[in-house]
């Protein structure tokens, strides 16, 4: 306590120097904490989003199963060449664990409306039970029924409808999809989940029947993926197994497809996030080391500058340990000041970021532990040598040192 008082007094008498020295640590802690807070927030929001919908949904993906991480859920990697066929859809819908199945064919292309014209819109050609599988609600109009697939009807995502027609109450309006006139029969409610198991940003997509899709593809059955809803979330692993065994019967090449459930998506996304977070943390760590070297430098200067003081303290009874702890506490205080301000700034900034991107603001205890523990270790590590140098001073030599 006393050493704290002495150290604090001495830091106060060099206010500017203390502030500048702790600045390096502050920046390091700021970056580290900010990365941790935001990445935790992202992680949590992704987990929430994906698992909200997909507890009992499995997606069967044709073609590349070597895709991992985020790409595995991107329509870009799903669309182009797929080996899934109608036969697979029929086989899977025959499984006892299955409640509903929807084939998904991905088409890109231009869509024109009265208010807008978009070059590359993800258009999903699918079946009547697609909205049931992904729990999609309509803001206006209807989804097509099983016997209405021959009609040139389209259902729009919320954002797409607003962009094309300026309204979500668009039933009956005519738009141009890949050069063909389609009647809008419904607009989906806003989903606000850019990342979903469906592999598309539903708010920005258009949906037509599979029959219409086949018209665009020239009859080539290019089912990119099959969305499967299980009867219950409990037998999801069993369902995955059954699907695989059915597909294994239908296909010669067993590398042509893959099966993914919601939790795989979370795992893939978080591993991707972890990679980015780790990289960022390494950079922040480097900045902390630089800050630590700054502290060491200042502490060494301060030891040299205060040799007489050390001599006086020793003359009135200070042992090496007293001097060591005084200088060490000074170093720790500098880093602690930096750590606290860095952490506070990080939360301030994180608050603004999460507000902007509607992420949750995470208050994990371990973020505080890291935010304060890391600078303290830096202080300990880089303050130790100067402190030891201070403690080693011979009392009379130190006393006679010219101040």
């Amino acid at each position, binding site marked *: 306590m*006393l050493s704290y008082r002495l150290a604090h007094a001495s830091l106060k008498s060099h206010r500017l120097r203390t502030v500048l020295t702790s600045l390096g640590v502050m920046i390091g802690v700021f970056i580290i904490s900010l990365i941790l807070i935001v990445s935790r927030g992202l992680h949590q929001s992704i987990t929430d989003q994906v698992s909200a919908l997909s507890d009992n949904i499995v997606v069967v993906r044709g073609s590349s199963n070597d895709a991992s991480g985020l790409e595995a859920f991107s329509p870009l990697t799903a669309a182009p060449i797929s080996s899934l066929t109608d036969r697979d859809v029929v086989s899977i819908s025959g499984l006892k664990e299955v409640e509903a199945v929807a084939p998904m064919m991905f088409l890109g292309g231009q869509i024109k409306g009265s208010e807008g014209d978009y070059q590359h819109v993800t258009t999903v050609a699918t079946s009547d039970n697609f909205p049931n599988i992904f729990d999609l609600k309509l803001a206006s109009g209807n989804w097509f029924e099983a016997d209405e697939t021959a009609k040139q009807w389209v259902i729009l995502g919320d954002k797409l409808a607003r962009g094309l027609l300026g309204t979500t109450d668009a039933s009956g309006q005519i738009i141009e999809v890949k050069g063909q006139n389609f009647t809008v029969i419904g607009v989906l409610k806003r989903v606000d989940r850019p990342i979903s198991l469906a592999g598309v940003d539903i708010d920005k997509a258009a949906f037509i029947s599979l029959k219409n899709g086949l018209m665009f593809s020239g009859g080539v059955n290019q089912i990119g993926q099959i969305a499967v809803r299980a009867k219950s979330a409990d037998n999801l692993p069993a369902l995955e197994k059954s699907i695989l065994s059915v597909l294994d019967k239908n296909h010669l090449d067993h590398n042509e497809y893959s099966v993914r459930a919601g939790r795989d998506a979370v795992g893939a996304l978080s591993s991707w996030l972890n990679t980015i977070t780790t990289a960022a943390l390494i950079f922040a760590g480097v900045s902390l080391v630089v800050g630590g070297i700054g502290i060491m430098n200042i502490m060494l200067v301060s030891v040299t500058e205060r040799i007489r003081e050390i*001599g006086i303290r*020793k*003359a*009135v*009874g*200070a*042992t090496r340990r007293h001097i060591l702890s005084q200088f060490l506490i000074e170093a720790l205080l500098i880093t602690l000041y930096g750590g606290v301000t860095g952490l506070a700034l990080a939360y301030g900034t994180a608050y603004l970021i999460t507000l902007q991107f509607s992420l949750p603001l995470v208050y994990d205890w371990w973020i505080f532990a890291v935010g304060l523990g890391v600078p303290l270790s830096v202080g300990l590590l880089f303050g130790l040598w100067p402190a030891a140098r201070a403690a080693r001073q011979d009392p*009379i030599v130190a*006393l006679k040192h010219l101040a």
Partner: protein
Amino acid sequence: MTTTPQDPAFALPKALLKDRQVFFAGAATRTIDEEPTPTISLRSTVKTFGFGDTVFQALDGIDLEIQRGEFVAIMGPSGCGKTTLLNILGLLDKPSAGEYFLNSKSVAKLSAARKARIRGREVGFIFQNFNLIPTLNVLDNVALPLTYQRGLKFNNLEKASKILKTFDLQNREYYLPNQLSGGQTQRVAIARALINNPSIILADEPTGNLDSKNSEIIMDELTRLHRAGNTILMVTHNPDLLSYASRVIHMKDGQIDRDIELTDTAAYKATTSFISQRKKQRSRRFRNGRLRRQKEGEKK
């Protein structure tokens, strides 16, 4: 006779010598034939500075025994090694050769931590150049030795405040050293040296910057501590102050030139005989004043 033949004091006229045994018979109530162990004992102590051609011998074979409770004044020309001697006695410096026994323990064998603790608890050092810490205020400077004591430290600042009052500095507690006059600085340095109730006080010209009134405050405080049984070594150039001492050591070129016990006025007068006439007159005036005060004190 307890002085050894090597003792420089032995060479002095018998009239100036006083048997230490007698002197101590009163002070130390030990069995009479048991010789008291000296609190400080230096044996042919040498201190050299520098290397090769520039070697300088600041202390040149000092033999010195100081008993507990003595008040020793150390005199001598500038550069004769007085401060060097005090530094060694206060465990700040190590002798280059010779031995130093503190309370009959060889100092050479003590660990650095042990020495630090002795400095903090047993020794009060009043430095010639004060050595206050410029970034700490007066109160913190004075309390500093207490902070390195073991045990609970609640009332450090209270204690410091109290001792500052003795030296008439109560309204300078929150000043920084550079805001003090020379005399005030000196008194702060003295307050710091005395706060631990040290049993050995090493005072390097403690009144060098003080007027006679403040000198008296200091000297009265040292006298009080002396009466309480503490050992005091005081470097001074002021012969007026010799009247407070029980013994005077004269140094010259790193050696003890003369070592004189002072127990009565005769001895005192004999000592001052080698001091210049002008100084002598001044010292008489000072001493008379002091004697008068003493008598007044006795009357009360």
